[in-house]
């Protein structure tokens, strides 16, 4: 069987993978990208409403900067995030937006003077400053205290992906399309690349690489109703899990987006609410102010999704034969705005429901949307369990999202992590001790093992139907490991998933072709997906608190005394039916922003014993540095600049905006 060699093997051709490949290539390393589909079809294209970056060009962003973006992100994460990494992220996000501007993204730009908009259900006029004319515009999004989302109408991810993909073609980076990594090659300490299956002819080959990068996106397809594309099945995370050495972090942290189209789960962007859209119930009542008087429709996604489902439980949903839903009302935004800034929403409503969102209400319900967890890495994006294995983007747990991600932070993370981790990967490849010595017998051992797995599926006498098992898993994940969770139901879910996993070892195929055989791909993917699903369910069962998107009815409070930590799941032996769970503590004494109330959602939580002490330390430092600039104060609280690659350390320039109060 064939063996290919490269410096950097990137698994996944979305924004994160492509950007990291460009970084490595620019530093003189050969990079190859494997992609299930042509890269421009990756799920990055589905990011709609925008990318968070504190550019502060519009009046409603006045006063925004890295500090504000940092605090919003940490509060959004319900203090689950790694605060140093959040700092690296918010510092680099404006640079990423500006790089993309230079690479061709047609960002929506600021028009100076009066602009009509809708805020809190009312039409208002905002006057943009002359200094901002032609700079990148920002729109409002959930869980943020400033307008911070840079956008391209509502196809931001598409525009970003096309620009980055085009640049990767310019950089002559080869992409193996319709190629699927099915196993990592490793010796228990060091990752050496991957076994790859060509999805057109079914042949297996090996790629040996100094650095291997998992950039495979999320695991939404573990669920029945999800906004995610069909390729977001979590099998990339499973590659790491199946090594037995690399760990997955916080897999129980699953985001449910408040507004997906009912019943298909197609995403209706948060930009709808950011631009002034409202949620209404069966009576046409705008109910979010009843639950969240301050942030209303624009609280964080975990909070809005729970409030919506609570409202439905109170009998306020719209009943249909296919289930219940609520309404999203964007009619008040006007046709001109919808045609300009919510164009995909318009197209989706017309194509799938034959409705016109400029005059009709849109039926919506929360559905699975984002996987906060993923391959656990350090701040350099490298797995702590396997040298030479990196992970970026949604597939990773780097970890800027903690237990809830803010809208617009994920597509920002793809390019930011691509830039930062891309540099670290290049550094890694530069070092002499990163050179590898690998026996072809080891490569053949892995190739042989994967070939045997496929042979067993194709030639074996198994009797289980793979797509049926996958459906059972999706049903039970949606019903039992969803927005509201409790111990008894989760225990049942874990039990049933273990049975499904056992049955998946006895899958039989009706179509015994080894080539482009969709049933065969479903079979081996289902085996992997069940392991990842078990990490989600077992992690959720073990975590006896509520934090961010992980909500336990039987433990409704966030518990910083016991659970201020990150779940690490490994799969110790191939025959196991459960992951091994360990916990990585989050140290309050090192936090720039110690745990507190998020400003929305539940006010009740169990404090960490260190919080008061750390808060006092911070107050003392701030007092001592009274009069110093914000950079000095920040550096005294939690230095991070040294962690960034040298070429990404510049301060972000901003125009001097009049303060919002002064202008209005």
């Amino acid at each position, binding site marked *: 069987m064939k063996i290919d060699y490269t410096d950097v093997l990137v698994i996944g051709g979305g924004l994160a993978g492509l950007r990291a490949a460009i970084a490595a290539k620019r530093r003189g390393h050969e990079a190859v990208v494997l992609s299930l589909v042509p890269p*421009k*079809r990756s799920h990055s294209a589905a990011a709609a409403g925008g990318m968070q970056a504190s550019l502060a060009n519009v009046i409603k962003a006045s006063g925004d900067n890295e500090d504000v973006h940092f605090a919003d992100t940490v509060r959004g994460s319900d203090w689950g995030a790694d605060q140093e990494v959040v700092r690296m992220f918010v510092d680099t996000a404006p640079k990423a937006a500006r790089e993309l501007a230079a690479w061709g993204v047609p960002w929506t730009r600021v028009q100076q003077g009066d602009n009509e908009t809708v805020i809190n259900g009312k039409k208002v006029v905002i006057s943009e400053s002359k200094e901002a004319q032609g700079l990148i515009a920002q729109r409002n999004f959930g869980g943020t205290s400033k307008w911070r989302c840079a956008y391209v109408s509502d196809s931001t991810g598409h525009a970003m992906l096309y620009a980055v993909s085009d640049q990767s073609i310019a950089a002559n980076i080869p992409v193996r399309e319709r190629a699927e990594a099915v196993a990592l090659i490793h010796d228990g300490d060091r990752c050496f690349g991957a076994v790859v299956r060509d999805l057109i002819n079914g042949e297996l080959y090996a790629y040996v690489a100094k650095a291997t990068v998992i950039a495979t996106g999320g695991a939404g397809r573990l669920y029945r109703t999800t906004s995610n594309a069909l390729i977001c099945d979590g099998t990339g995370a499973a590659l790491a899990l199946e090594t037995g050495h690399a760990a997955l972090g916080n897999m129980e942290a699953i985001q449910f987006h408040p507004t997906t189209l009912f019943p298909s789960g197609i995403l209706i962007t948060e930009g709808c609410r950011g631009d002034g859209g409202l949620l209404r119930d069966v009576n046409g009542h705008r109910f979010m102010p009843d639950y969240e008087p301050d942030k209303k429709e624009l609280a964080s996604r975990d909070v809005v999704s729970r409030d919506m489902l609570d409202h439905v439980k109170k009998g306020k949903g719209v009943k249909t034969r296919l289930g219940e839903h609520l309404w999203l009302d964007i009619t008040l935004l006007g046709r001109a705005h919808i045609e300009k800034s919510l*164009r995909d929403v318009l197209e989706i409503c017309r194509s799938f429901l034959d409705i016109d969102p400029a005059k009709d209400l849109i039926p919506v319900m929360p559905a699975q949307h984002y996987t906060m967890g993923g391959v656990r890495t350090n701040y350099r994006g490298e797995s702590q369990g396997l040298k030479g294995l990196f992970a970026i983007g949604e597939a990773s747990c780097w970890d800027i999202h903690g237990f809830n991600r803010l809208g617009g932070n994920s597509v920002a993370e793809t390019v930011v992590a691509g830039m930062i981790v891309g540099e670290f990967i290049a550094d890694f490849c530069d070092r002499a001790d990163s050179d590898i010595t690998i026996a072809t017998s080891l490569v053949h051992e892995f190739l042989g093992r994967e070939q045997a797995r496929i042979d067993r599926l194709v030639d074996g006498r198994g009797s289980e139907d793979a797509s049926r098992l996958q459906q059972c898993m999706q049903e039970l994940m949606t019903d039992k490991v969803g927005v509201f969770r409790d111990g008894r139901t989760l225990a049942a879910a874990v039990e049933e998933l273990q049975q499904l996993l056992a049955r998946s070892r006895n899958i039989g195929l009706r179509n015994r072709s080894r*080539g*482009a055989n969709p049933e065969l791909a479903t079979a081996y993917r289902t085996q992997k997906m069940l392991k990842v699903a078990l990490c989600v369910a077992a992690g959720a069962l073990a975590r006896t608190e509520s934090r961010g998107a992980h909500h336990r009815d039987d433990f409704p409070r966030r518990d910083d005394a016991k659970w201020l930590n990150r779940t690490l799941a490994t799969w110790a032996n191939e025959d196991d039916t459960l992951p091994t769970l360990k916990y990585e503590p989050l140290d309050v004494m090192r936090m720039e922003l110690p745990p507190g109330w998020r400003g929305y959602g539940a006010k009740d939580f169990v404090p960490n014993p260190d919080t008061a002490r750390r808060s006092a330390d911070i107050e003392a430092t701030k007092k001592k540095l009274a009069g110093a600039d914000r950079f000095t104060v920040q550096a005294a609280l939690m230095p991070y600049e040294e962690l960034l690659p040298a070429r990404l350390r510049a301060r972000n*320039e901003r125009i001097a905006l009049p303060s919002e109060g002064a202008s209005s």
Partner: protein
Amino acid sequence: MTKATEGSTHRQLTINVLRYDPHTPERPARMEAFQVEEAEGMTLFIALNEIRERLDPSLNFDFVCRAGICGSCGMLINGRPGLACRTLTKHLGPNINLAPLPAFELISDLSVNTGKWMRSMSERLQAWLHAREEEIDLGRLEERMDPVVAEKLYELDRCIECGCCIAGCGTAQMRKDFVGAVGLNKVGRFRLDPRDQRTDDDYFELIGDDDGVFGCMALLGCHDVCPKQLPLQTQIAFLRRKMLSNGMKSTTKAEGKK
């Protein structure tokens, strides 16, 4: 609820699929018929998946986003190129004919290799932004752009490379290197972009021949079938005029030199 559920008749649909796998040439190309009961809000995405799960696990087709934004599922739907994921069966008769997009390498059944075609086109047309500076100072303010220009760029940037324009193009069926509306739209997009340093002389080098803008026979099937309603007709006409005057100019120059 919505109009989508009104008037559901639960028709019996017959979906005829043109099947062929180049890896098993011993099985000739054939039409195969599948019976599916229509459901509320059924799309071809739902119908084809039901066929694969219930009737024939070997049926090949491509879907990724299933929301009309990724461009994976272009196919001939009753002879016309379109996105299958967002085609509602209720807009079609009870007999539906599906075939792979022509002009692309066939992978199997309804699956074609648009990715390979698009990458090759992008390389030939150098379809990426050619910025003035290689290295950008990332700490500095972004370059300003007229908001109206940005909107116009977005309009052309909406292409999803689904391949429908190529499948609907007369020239592309005959001339394998023809860059098609997708390629010409890209050139139009970068030509409009103030950040791209290329001139019409550069673009003439790329598309000033029969594989470029002069290969278009003005049948404009591309414009009719584009699922994103891109202004392809205007783009191609505009580019042809620009390239023609550029060609005339260079011819005059060349003659002047003699």
